[in-house]
């Protein structure tokens, strides 16, 4: 029983860590977006306001995939162990 619970906790922790690999994508994407926005502002300094607000908007949308990963990780850390252990205990009983 202890081994099984330990395995569940281990699986959840490793899974949470792996889920956060999703952070790579938005990082690269947002970096590209900001780089492009810098170039645009450098070329046309008067369009600064529009470019900045559009960039922030795009960044927020691009961030969504990373946030999905974060939510999965948080569920795996805070919610899943309890749930799985309960299922295990119910099975054993």
């Amino acid at each position, binding site marked *: 029983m202890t081994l099984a619970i330990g395995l569940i906790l281990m699986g959840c922790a490793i899974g949470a860590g792996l889920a956060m690999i999703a952070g790579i994508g938005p990082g690269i994407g947002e970096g590209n977006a900001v780089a492009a926005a810098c170039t645009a502002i450098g070329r046309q300094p008067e369009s600064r306001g529009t470019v900045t607000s559009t960039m922030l*908007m795009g960044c*927020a949308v691009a*961030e*969504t995939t990373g*946030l999905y990963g*974060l*939510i999965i990780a*948080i569920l795996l850390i805070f919610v899943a162990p309890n749930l799985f252990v309960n299922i295990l205990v119910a099975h054993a009983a």
Partner: protein
Amino acid sequence: MTATKKSLKFILLDILYLAMIILPFAGAIVLKVLITPQTEGVSLTGAIILWQIPMPLQDLYITEVQINSWAVVIAILGLVLFLRHGLSVKPYLKRQLVLEWIVEQCDNLVMSNMGQAFMGFSPFICAIMALSAFSSLSSLLGIFPPTSDLNIIAGWAILVFILITYFKLKGGFFHYLKSYTEPIAVMTPMNIISEFATPVSMTMRHFGNVLSGVVISSLLGVFLSSLTAGLPGLLGQIPFLRVGIPAVLSLYFDIFSGCLQAFIFAMLTMQYVANGFPGEAYEKRLKRRAERAARRAAEKA
């Protein structure tokens, strides 16, 4: 009314409105202090359930979050009433200028993103932005921010989803159904999925951003108090590093990220509603309807 002299009634109403802003938050803080159980260090928990009301399908849970979100709603109402108090054609109060600035900014935003036809949306957009921003900012007072609970934002996102669908249906029901088979019929499952992904992604985006701030702040708190825990004597008792340093992170996560997410939620609402609205089909439908009415009137005559 002259510029300097304010009547007693005016001042009393002002005090009432200010109380409407302050008291809900004070109540929320008191409630938080009363109900939060004693824990060692920093703990990450969801909202605390206060009451459980039995309902036919599922029990209705009244949590901290509902209370806080109502507190925010009442505070915003009080703020708006305070700002609009004493409106006049010749502004003699500073707050009228603030109010005019807010209304003008919001109108400009809606105008540039949705166009003239959707100007009626301006109050709704302003309300959703204020609600989201103040909910996120309420975490600065130490209360559980309503936006870090999935249910609250899911409620807003479902509201927006209903709005989007309502405006899509304006082009006629068959036009709405047909829009799922664009550009080709094979894409129908994809379109249905993307339709339902809209509220989910709106919810997750806002929730994830606020939640990540809460989690990282808590982790930083644990880290900073563990740094000083090893020190001898009284120094080890008081986590003095936790004073001030988390405020720097809070500047980003609570203030910047909260306001940005409010802006983005409002932006996305505007984009989805304005893009989903089938303008041409709606005009055609109106024309058809007018023709039918004219024909019917001719038949009657």
